[in-house]
Structure formats: C-alpha cells, structure tokens
C-alpha cells in the first residue's frame, strides 16, 4: 500500500526551497523609513527590519496593524525588494476602496511609524535565480515578480528572465520607470498612442514560448484570481507544462 500516487493531471510539488531558517515565525517590529508613490493608486513602503532573516524573490510576509483596544488586522504582502537590501524591505500596496490595512498605509502612514511583520512566508512561489523564468503579472501582482527582476539585476544573473505585465493604462503601470528590455507591458483600457489595447492573449505569449530557452521556462503567474485563471489557462493552451507553472493568487 505504499506505491506512490500518480496524479492524472500533473502538478509539480516542488520541494521547499531552502530559505534561511530562523526568525520567520516571530513577529518583528518594522519601522517605516520611506514612501514612494508608484501610480495614483499604488505606493511603495520602505521598512527597516533589523532582524530580517532575508528572503527569496517571490516570497511574501504577514503584516499586522494593532489598534489601541487590542484589535489587530493581518494581511499578506509580497516582498518587492531584492533579498540583499540590508536590513530593509519594500512592499508595494494598492489602495483598496474601503480597505482596512491598505487604507491606513495610503492615508495615515508616515516615516517613523511602526508595524509588525512576520516572515518571509512560503517557499513555493520563490525564485532563487537558478532557472529561466517567465513572469506574468497584473496590477499589484507584479510586486513579487519585481523582486525577481531586481534580484536578477543586482546579481548580474545571466539566466533568461522575461516579464509580461498587464495594467489598465500606462499611468497605472507599477514600476513603469524601472522596466528594461526584459519587460513587455500589456494595456487593457488605454495605451500609448498607436499601441494595441486589450486583454492578455495567446499572441502575447507565443513569441516568448516559441523562443524559450533550451530547457524551457519556469512560469510564475501572479495577480487577482481572475487574472491568474486567465493567464494560467493561456499558458497551458500554449503548451507550457502544468508542472512548471506556479501561481500566487492575491485572493
């Protein structure tokens, strides 16, 4: 009765990517040191976390705000910064209408404020920089992917890396100034003059999959659930193996 189960549909169950053991389980105090506006609805928050154990690009953390009466609100946020930003991490938050935590960040937060963080969490979506990566994100789903791009640059890695990022318009494209040749933006509502506008399609993926690196891509898909479903189905239809697609859904 010990024969291994072979799933009819494949799904890689990759082993845990080793992440520095240690402080991930404990709450730590993070001090806000800077705020940078990215788009009218998104801003990046730089935090000093002296005891940060480091992370792999793609990981997220748990963040907690506490009210004077003891009430707490906890949310997950992806790490936007590359791992070796000594003692600092960056998060990028979308402003959610009526949002309890993102609302505080966008309307109250200022340098010197302290919040609690715990992490990094989850090794599944992490990218250690060892495999050719095709990154596909939409909206704030680009945040963990940007950590990968920044890591790739900071380390001068030569492993192939491509980013396909979807945003409603150029003004809503998070990190617009930072993208280079690795990035193809897709605009769904309005684009630069002359550029096509519309949802991500098979035609956006085809050139990337056709000229894939010799061993193929490891695909990382991140965004809302609707986007993750759409993009992962496009990938499967285009021939990307199911067991080489990792998905992070923001809910």
């Amino acid at each position, binding site marked *: *009765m010990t024969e291994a*189960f072979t*799933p*009819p*549909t*494949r*799904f*890689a*169950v990759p*082993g*845990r990517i080793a992440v520095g053991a240690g402080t*991930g*389980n404990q*709450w730590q*105090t993070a001090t806000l040191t800077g705020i940078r506006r990215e788009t009218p609805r998104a801003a990046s928050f730089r935090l000093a976390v002296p005891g940060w154990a480091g992370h792999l690009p793609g990981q997220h953390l*748990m963040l*907690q*705000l*506490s*009210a*004077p*009466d003891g*009430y*707490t*609100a*906890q*949310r*997950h946020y992806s790490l936007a910064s590359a791992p070796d930003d000594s003692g600092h991490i960056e998060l990028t938050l979308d402003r959610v209408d009526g949002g*309890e935590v993102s609302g*505080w960040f966008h309307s*109250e*937060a200022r340098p010197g*404020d*302290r*919040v*609690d963080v715990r992490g990094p*969490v*989850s*090794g*599944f*979506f992490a990218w250690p920089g060892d495999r050719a990566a095709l990154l596909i994100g939409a909206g704030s789903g680009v945040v963990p992917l940007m950590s990968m791009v920044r890591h790739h640059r900071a380390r001068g890695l030569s492993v192939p890396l491509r980013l396909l990022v979807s945003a409603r318009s150029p003004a809503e494209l998070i990190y617009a100034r930072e993208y280079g040749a690795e990035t193809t933006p897709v605009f769904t509502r309005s684009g630069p003059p002359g550029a096509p506008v519309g949802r991500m399609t098979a035609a956006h993926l085809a050139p990337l999959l056709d000229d894939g690196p010799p061993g193929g891509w490891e695909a990382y898909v991140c965004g809302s*659930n609707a986007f*993750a*479903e759409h993009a*992962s*189905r496009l*990938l*499967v239809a285009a021939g990307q193996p*199911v*067991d080489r*697609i*990792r*998905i*992070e*859904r923001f*809910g």
Partner: protein
Amino acid sequence: MNVTRGFSGRPRVHNPGLPPGQYDARDDWPVLSAEVTPDLSPADWTFRIDGLVEEPRTWDWATAHELPASVHEGDIHCVTGWSKFGVRFAGVSLDAFWERVRPLPSATHVVAYAHTGYTTNLPLADLRDGRAWIAWEYDGRPLPAEHGGPARLLVPHLYFWKSAKWIAGLRLLDHDEPGFWERNGYHARGNPWAEQRYSGD
C-alpha cells in the same frame, strides 16, 4: 506588539464565531491554490482510500453518490485571514467511507491527495465523528472547479488549506507526513481557534 499610530480598525461588533486574526469575507470567496485549476469532469473523478485500512477501495462519481447524502452548514476559515459564515455544502460524510474501508487501529494520520498532486496531512481523528465530508455541491449548485469541483475534501474546523480541492484519495498512515504547504512552513494541524498558521505556532 506595537500599537499602530492612527489605526483604529474598522468599526466592529464582537463576533464570537470569528477565530483570532480572521475577518469576515461576507460574499467574497477568494480562491487560493498554487496550481492550475484542472479540467476534471465528474466522469473522470475517482476517490480512493488506502493505506492502513482493512479494505482499500476506490469510488467513482456514481458509486460515491450511492452513499448516504449529507449536508453541512457552518463556517470556514482560510489561513490568509478570511472567514465565511453559514456556508452550505452537500456531499457525503467521511464516516460513510470509514464504515466501508474500516481503518486499522494502528492508523493515526492521513495524507489527503488531490488529482493535481497537491497533498495535505491530517490527524485521522479530525476526519471522524461527523467532522469531515467529501463535498460536491455548494449552495445547491455543483461545486465550481476553482473551488475544488467536482469534489473536495471539507474539514471546516481546520484552516481551509486542509480541505484539499479536487480530492483524489486518502492514505492512512501510522505517522504524520507533511503535505505540500506543511513542507512549505505551514502548521501540521491548522486549528484556527489556536491560530496554528505556521510551523512552530
């Protein structure tokens, strides 16, 4: 814990049904799975129980539906922070399956595995005595694929990553064997009331 300057939280009424650190997702039902949603039709769905049982067995859609139907109404809690109240699932209680396979006395733990290859571990005790189901209907309709349809495991008293979507089988063991998220740092049991989120909690 730091009191966060300028943060008072949302106006709230105390809700004794809400475990610590959770919020009410109301009509939302977020989807959190690491894999591509499989196209699995009821005709292709099978469910097997093996390992430390007297009689290992496999059911298909029709034979599983011959078992006594059971409805579960209650609350669900996801480790990412949302809870959902008064949800209604229909399927079969796992007790009906246990009666037929008869777990051996040496069985203490279970690995639940999905048609996608996803796995999660549970103490056997958490799957007995009317606390766990194989569910194929949500709110009177077939369970949507992105929520685990055609059929998922349902263990509402534990965090919802234990309720494996696209359930393919349960293997009974005499020891605990971490599953997919448990190998990625999550808790072995996942009791929301004790906030067992990550290993070490």
